[in-house]
């Protein structure tokens, strides 16, 4: 499988052209990431990479370490060992807000809106951060930019409502708007479809796809339980099980991978 992924190397051998180092540099490179909580190893020696403009999904059963991996990448947890290299720079040990300003934005599995603020002000908080402020286009006010972002995710009608009064579906999209406001190079979505009905899921799938078309250089990393929705938006899937990476590949490959099916469905009777 690993050789499959590194097929770029094979072509270079065949054609005799060595790719430039700069071009092969990944947007994010994770090497040997490990995190222990007491006796439990939540994430164990996980390595992967993300290129510019890729859409990647992370799946795995409950307790596989997906959210821990997310927290490690976004700086809310510090790994025990391993490196996370973003555009050639090690970001291990940096504070969460610094990582956001370097270009990784995340959403939360459980929505975390600012209840006392109107919906538009929720987005303005992210625009007040150094990176968000830098990314505001010339001659554009912060309010205008926030309204545009809300328009993009499709919740501009409730712009002035206090966040405590709006529904869960809107809050889910507000989470995404907050993450998008800093214009990240890597957008990490933690269960974006959690608690949404099929209609909303469909809408969000479409809007993520459209978002990716609008900004092709932005990589998107999605953790999700709803495999059907996930498989439609990602190009590559990483499977975690008990903190370890057990498979990686295209969605079709993963769907037919024996080990993955075993982990998700349990072993068949004939194996027992």
């Amino acid at each position, binding site marked *: 499988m690993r050789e499959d992924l590194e097929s770029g190397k094979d072509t270079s051998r065949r054609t005799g052209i060595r790719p430039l180092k700069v071009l092969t540099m990944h947007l994010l490179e994770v090497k040997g990431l490990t995190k222990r909580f007491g006796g439990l190893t939540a994430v164990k020696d996980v390595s992967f990479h993300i290129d510019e403009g890729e859409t990647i999904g992370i799946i795995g059963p409950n307790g596989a370490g997906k959210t821990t991996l997310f927290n490690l990448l*976004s700086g*809310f947890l510090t790994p025990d060992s391993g490196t996370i290299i973003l555009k050639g720079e090690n970001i291990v040990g940096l*504070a*969460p*807000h610094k990582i*956001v*300003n370097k270009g990784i*934005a*995340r*959403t*939360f599995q459980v929505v*975390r*809106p*600012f*209840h*006392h*603020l109107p919906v538009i*002000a*929720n987005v*303005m*908080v*992210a625009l*007040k*951060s*150094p*990176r*968000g402020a830098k990314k505001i286009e010339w001659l554009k006010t*912060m309010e205008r930019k926030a309204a545009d972002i809300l328009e993009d995710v499709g919740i501009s009608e409730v712009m002035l409502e206090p966040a405590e009064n709006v529904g869960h579906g809107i809050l889910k999209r507000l989470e995404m708007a*907050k*993450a998008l*406001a*800093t214009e990240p190079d890597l957008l990490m979505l933690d269960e974006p479809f959690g608690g949404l009905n099929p209609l909303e899921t469909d809408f969000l799938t479409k809007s993520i796809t459209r978002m990716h078309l609008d900004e092709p250089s932005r990589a998107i990393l999605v953790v999700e339980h709803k495999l059907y929705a996930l498989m439609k938006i990602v190009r590559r899937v990483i499977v975690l099980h008990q903190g370890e990476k057990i498979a990686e590949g295209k969605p079709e490959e993963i769907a037919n991978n024996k080990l993955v099916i075993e982990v998700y469905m349990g072993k068949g009777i004939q194996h027992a």
Partner: protein
Amino acid sequence: MVLSYLRRAHSSFAAHVFDIPPRLMVFLFLLILLAVPITGISDYYMGILTSANVLAIFAVSWDLLVGRTGQISLGHSLFLGIGGYSSALIFKYYGLPIWITIPLAMLIGSLFSVLIGFPCLRVKGPYLALVTMAFPLILYRIVKWAPLTPIFGRVGIIVPSFFHFLPIRQQVIAEFYFTLILLFASSVIIYKIANSKTGIVFMSILDDEVASQACGINVTKHKLMAFVISGMFASLAGCLFVHLLRLAESSVFLLTVSFIPVIITFLGGIGTIYGPIVGAYIYSILDKYVLGQMLPNLLEQWQMTLPTEFEYAKLLIFTSIVVILVIKWPRGIARYTTDRLEDLEEARDLDERGPRIWKRYKQKNRN
């Protein structure tokens, strides 16, 4: 034609004036306060209102830190004391006039809040409240410490009034106006800060610190900012307080003083600008007039006197009022009133809109 023009002009005027009730209310409130000395009430009552102005500055600064940023401080008397003592010491050793001592006291207050903010803001929630509680008690001991008596004095440092060159009556009136102007200025500044984009970030920290970090906000920096602004205005209040008492004494560092802004802000309404101001007036009138004058006078009619321990029981009365308020009206008196007013306005709007919607509905159905 003229009539219709006048009607339109009136309606636009009404829209401009009556659609901003907060500003109008502030204006009226200020007008009433400005007119108070003309009524010729006694110096004692003027003193109550002056101390209310100072306490309002103190409570407004506390509210910026606690009501808007969510950093619970139960040791705000620290800044009151630092402001007061620094202005008193500057007066004692250098004899500088007030327009120099006030900014200097504010500067020293903000420097101290940076120093104290760094260790304090490493902890959160109830632990922060405990840590902030400890600092004024430390300073209380330092001020009382025997080797430092030559500096801080046995009973405190005696300072003159701001307007010591005027006769007594004018002095009281001048103090009232002076503190009122400072209250107006500092509450406008704090209101502007709280409603700016930085104020939005403060509110986001109050709501969810982790989510605020995930938005790329340097939470520690913004907390420290709130701490410094709050400390600065609290030390302004301290400076005024000391010059009103004509004495800088160690009791300003006591825990009871730290609870005053808590009581005031909960009386008025937390997380607003008018809340602490209204609360401060209610508190001062309750404290000095109702419990300090009306009650003893009433008891005198029945040949009774208040025990001297009553001073300490006052805090008990106020804390029980706060407990009842928190349960009954958690948003405070002033905020409860404005909410009621908004409800009324909404009802009026619905009344106006109602028939029109009904008409449109009927038209639609006819076609």
